[in-house]
């Protein structure tokens, strides 16, 4: 079974800052990481491979330095890495990205065998759109399983899969036929460390590097800025809410007295709450 995991190299959002004057994101010196949600997808794909046999290919689109993320994925235990990189792709929004990745997936199918499953994380931490996975599924006519919390059953011979999908208000159990695309939820597994051999293999591995032409992309008008109808009009940092922290002296007071003083302090600041509570306790 061939499984492809689409990953993205993203700036570590925990360390990103917005320039106070220009309101632009300061990317300089911000370390890059594999989009954390994609790691759940990668681990799930490798578990299926370990169980059913086959290969896991990781695919990313990005600048040449995205190779670092691919090598990391190989260290974790992926079998093959493909980097889709071309200046043509610069400025891609989710529409153009899903076009390029879908084209590369078709090419991967031709060269390395058609995938039965394509994985992505549920979304990236820099764009947060959750649109690229479904976009790929639509373009390649793959059955679409989003926000998957657990893979319940997979039958490669019958080409069927059953998953639990987290939805508002509950969990859906969905079954469908392969090939399918799964966007994986966070927290469902933990990425393995990778053995010393896989780390060594990753360090020595040849990364498959494709530009637009090599990936079989003819229509460059659908790539990069030209193929991106989304326009970023403005980026700004939300202003912090003006909330104060106050510490009340409670030393040696009995619990009731502490509660009393906290409630009194709240009522003093929010008289409306006091009114509501009084009405509530009066049964109105």
């Amino acid at each position, binding site marked *: 079974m061939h499984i492809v995991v689409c990953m993205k190299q993203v700036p570590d959002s925990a360390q990103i800052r917005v320039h106070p004057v220009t309101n632009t994101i300061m990317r300089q010196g911000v370390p890059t990481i594999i989009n954390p949600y994609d790691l759940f997808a990668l681990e799930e794909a490798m578990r299926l491979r370990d169980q059913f046999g086959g290969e896991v290919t990781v695919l990313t689109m990005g600048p040449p330095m995205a190779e670092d993320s691919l090598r990391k994925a190989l*260290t974790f235990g992926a079998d093959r890495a493909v980097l889709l990189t071309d200046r043509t792709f610069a400025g891609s929004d989710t529409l153009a990205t899903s076009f390029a990745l879908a084209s590369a997936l078709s090419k991967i199918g031709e060269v390395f065998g058609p995938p039965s499953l394509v994985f992505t994380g549920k979304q990236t931490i820099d764009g947060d759109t959750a649109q690229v996975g479904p976009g790929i599924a639509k373009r390649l006519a793959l059955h679409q399983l989003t926000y998957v919390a657990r893979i319940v059953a997979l039958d490669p011979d019958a080409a069927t899969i059953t998953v639990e999908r987290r939805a508002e208000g509950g969990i859906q159990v969905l079954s469908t036929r392969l090939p399918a695309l799964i966007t994986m939820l966070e927290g469902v597994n933990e990425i393995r*460390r*990778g*053995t*010393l*051999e896989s*780390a*060594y293999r990753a*360090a*020595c591995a040849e990364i498959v590097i494709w530009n637009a032409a090599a990936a079989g992309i003819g229509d460059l008008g659908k790539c990069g800025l030209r193929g991106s109808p989304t326009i970023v009009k403005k980026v700004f940092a939300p202003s912090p809410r003006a909330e104060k922290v106050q510490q009340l002296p409670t030393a040696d007071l009995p619990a009731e007295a502490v509660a009393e003083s906290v409630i009194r302090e709240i009522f003093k600041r929010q008289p409306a709450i006091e009114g509501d509570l009084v009405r509530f306790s009066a049964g109105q």
Partner: protein
Amino acid sequence: MIEQRFDAIVVGAGPSGNAAAYTMATAGLKVLQLERGEYPGSKNVQGAILYASALEKIIPDFRDDAPLERHVIEQRLWTMDDASHVGVHYRSSDFNEERPNRYTILRAQFDKWFSRRVRDAGAILLCETTVTELLRDPAGRVIGVRTDRDGGTAFADIVVLGEGVNGLVGQRSGLRPELKPDNVALAVKEMHFLPRETIESRFNLKQDEGVVIEAMGTITAGMTGTAFLYTNQESISIGIGCLVSDFAENQQTPYGLLEAFKNHPSIKPLLENAECKEYVAHLIPEGGYNAIPELYGDGWIVVGDAGQFVNAVHREGSNLAMTTGRIAGETIVALKQRHQAMSKANLAEYRRRLDETFVMKDLKKYRKIPAFLHRNKQIFGLYPKLFAGAAQTWLRVDGIDKRTKEKEILKSFRKGRTLPGLIGDAFNFARSWR
């Protein structure tokens, strides 16, 4: 287990490990390098000054693409009391030479660059891989390493230990004793960001010129230690460090010292409006010549901080690390080419080669200094105060005649340290320095 057998395994991707790996890889040896950090430089901390000559001997054209911050054109040496400093400054446009002698660098970036060159030379680097122990054959020869990864053994003719000051692998394997608190300093450092132009106007610099300040005095609260301030392109590195044994004895905290140093009236204006972006701490081996452990044995060799190769007096370390790494690499390459075993007897050539370099000569020259500084705390407390007092008495124009002022200054020195004390200090210092 990695099937492939290597000529050498290098533990650590800091300056010494990189120098060794680069030297061996360029000579065609199969080199595996293991680094516990997420990337080379992620665990490494230094001021940092790069001394060009040591790197030039390894990568002559490093200036073409290494991430260098500023070349140093001015060095300020300060002794400080609580309100002032007495300084010796040397600034020369000679330092604006075509191939400058010293640069400020940011280690996270520099180490990444160095590692790139090492990998381009053919060494295989595995990060986030911690070596846990050395593997030995029944005769006790080191034949490889075990790592913390599953299936984590790898084998080689020799293991180069460039594992840094803590040297846990060497310690655990019984190659060297645990660090002694009076042989190691704890230093803390902050990075403060400032616009380029602000740094240049504040320190009177043009383009890539840089200033370094090295300071000692009451800022270390009577403990053996020094402080520094280095100018980078768009940031200032500022730090302070003292012997670990002194911190323990005096119940001082390193960050407390750094706060006080930053708020010193001589330093505060230099940092005005800067934004602190990074706080790091690290150990520095400062035991000098007498603390150098066994440097080689059957199948292993030690380079860099793990071998205590730091010249604390001159604030040199990374150049000693690179030089020891290079010479270890050259020794291994020479043995390999002569088809000689990596035995203790053959590796003695490493020590012989090292003895011929500035590394051993300087460390030997200053071998008595660590003990001297440890015993003579007045160097860090009393003398800076006396110098500052003398300067103030001498420079303040207040109607008192100069002869009286001279007498007053002499009296303050005699009162502070007594005449025999002054003579003794001078004699002891000269003897240690010699």
